[in-house]
């Protein structure tokens, strides 16, 4: 610095010499030795008119074990309280999960040279304690670069990848058979293939704890013997019928079912306590809790939809015969209406007849691309009122439902007043 300025003095005219000499003095001051212990602090808190030498660390290297992760300030509390995990199988792209959200991880390269300087109290980067001490004593005024970072990780909020959960739980649903086996053999060392505990699910499903829990609920899963299970539809059907049968016999109101009575009655009919209780959860809502009595109200929609599904399990039906059978199956005191079957069934006109078949939104994949591809395979053209129940649950962070439609459908509207029709792009 000093030498280069001398050179300039020779090459410029006489009047500027004085000014330049002043600058030389400043330069000399700058070269005063530094206080401070030479880590990141010395660089970040560099005093005016001072300087620090930047050098390669004694442990400088590629350090592939050091990763930079850019994240929102609002996620820092989760980090500090250790609520963050990375989840995924070796063949999946890893995601980062907080307690309630899921983020995909992207690597962003940087062609600049990014010199990483550790904090001075970073004992990890001392070859031995002696080395650290010597550094403190001798190497003041030197900040050491441990690594040149080739880029960093960035987070993008995504929808949790929950389709796999359904697949896992469908491997081995809980059946009536299993109840019998349990009775036959006191301790059944059943091979636990296709059985998953909470900890197994967390290892296998790319979703945050909260998202996983709410999906388990949405799938009507129940924890039995430590394993999360979905109960075979046929089995649930028999328990529900038995519950309704008992209410008729005992003159119970479906709006105010006493949990203890219902569960003990079902138990005496041979159903396990856990499943009797689960039946109330699946088809009802807890309405009241007084004097230690738990009271449940059966949910009209859920019960009616259950019976509609039962009827359509065998295949498509003519509308009239479906409606007739459905009305017969609905328990006394409940009102079925066709609106309840939004997102559950599709109707089509064949000649003069209307046919109905099951097409449940809950059986469709949750990724928008796969969802739309199945929807357009089912039906090449969709009216908005038919389509809406099948896409309203799709959630893509940062993309509105209009955005989804723009991306995956072609909208046609023959005339201004006509209903828009959506087809594949």
């Amino acid at each position, binding site marked *: *610095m000093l*030498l*280069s300025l001398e*050179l300039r003095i020779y*090459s410029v005219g006489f009047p500027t010499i004085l000014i330049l000499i002043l600058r030389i003095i400043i330069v000399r001051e*700058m070269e005063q030795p530094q206080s401070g212990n030479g*880590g*990141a*602090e010395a*660089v*970040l808190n*560099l*005093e*005016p*008119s001072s*300087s*620090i*030498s*930047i*050098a*390669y660390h*004694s*442990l*400088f290297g590629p350090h*592939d*074990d*050091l*990763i*930079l*992760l*850019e*994240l929102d*300030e609002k996620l*820092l509390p989760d*980090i*500090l*309280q250790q609520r*963050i*995990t*990375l*989840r*995924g199988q*070796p063949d999946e792209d*890893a995601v980062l999960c907080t307690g309630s959200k899921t983020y995909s991880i992207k690597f962003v390269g940087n062609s*600049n*040279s*990014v*010199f*990483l*300087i*550790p*904090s001075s109290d*970073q004992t*990890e980067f001392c070859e031995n304690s002696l080395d650290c001490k010597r550094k403190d004593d001798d190497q003041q005024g030197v*900040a050491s*670069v441990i690594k040149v*970072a080739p880029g*960093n990780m960035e987070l993008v909020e995504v929808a949790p990848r929950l389709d796999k959960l359904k697949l896992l739980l469908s491997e081995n649903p809980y059946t009536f058979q299993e109840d019998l086996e349990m009775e036959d053999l006191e301790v059944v060392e059943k091979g636990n293939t296709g059985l998953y505990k909470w900890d197994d699910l*967390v*290892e296998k499903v790319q979703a945050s704890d909260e998202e996983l829990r709410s999906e388990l609920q949405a799938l009507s899963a129940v924890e039995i013997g430590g394993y999360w299970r979905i109960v075979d539809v046929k089995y649930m059907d028999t328990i529900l019928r038995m519950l309704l049968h008992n209410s008729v016999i005992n003159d119970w109101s479906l709006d105010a079912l006493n949990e203890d009575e219902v569960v003990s009655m079902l138990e005496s009919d041979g159903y396990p306590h856990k499943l009797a209780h689960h039946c109330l959860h699946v088809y009802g809502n807890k309405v009241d809790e007084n004097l230690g009595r738990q009271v449940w109200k059966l949910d009209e929609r859920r019960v009616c939809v259950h019976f509609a599904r039962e009827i359509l399990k065998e295949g498509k039906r003519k509308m009239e015969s479906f409606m007739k059978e459905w009305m017969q199956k609905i328990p006394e005191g409940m009102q079925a209406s066709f609106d309840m079957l939004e997102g559950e069934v599709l109707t089509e006109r064949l000649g003069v007849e209307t046919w109905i078949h099951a097409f449940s939104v809950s059986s469709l994949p949750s990724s928008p691309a796969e969802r739309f591809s199945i929807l357009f395979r089912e039906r090449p053209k969709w009216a908005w009122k038919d389509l809406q129940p099948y896409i309203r649950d799709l959630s893509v962070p940062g993309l509105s439902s209009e955005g989804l439609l723009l991306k995956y459908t072609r909208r046609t509207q023959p005339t201004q007043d006509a209903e828009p029709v959506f087809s594949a792009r």
Partner: protein
Amino acid sequence: MQIRVKCKCGEGKCPEWAVVELQGVVEAQPSFQDRLQNLEIGVLCRPSSQPVYTFKVGYHELTGSKVALKKPMLVLQKTKRTGTGDTDVGTDTNSSNVELQVIGIIRHRILFKTRPKPLISSKLTNPSCTLLCLIEGYAMKGQIARNLILF
């Protein structure tokens, strides 16, 4: 599998790391290339009370500033949990023993995004590092411009 992100920082006090970032590549003289450790890259200088910094690398000087990052950046270190007494039964892969430890946080960088200014002197001691510009020709143009002013 699941990798935990551990943090021993406590109440919001992660050690703060620094980043010095510049366009281009710093290259050591061939004789030093195999042993970069402890080698000086350059001298960082804050000439005034302004948040303006200079970084002298070899025969070049860069001018830059201290910039706050829009979002903080965590420094994570991948560590393998060493086998404790109670080894898990059925841990399918050894990768399930991997942990990420938060060892630092970066909130600022000293960013040099200007073209390097050559320091003209034949008497400078032979530097250990030189600055290579990513954009070819920048250094040359800079030199020519400087010479025109000088003479």
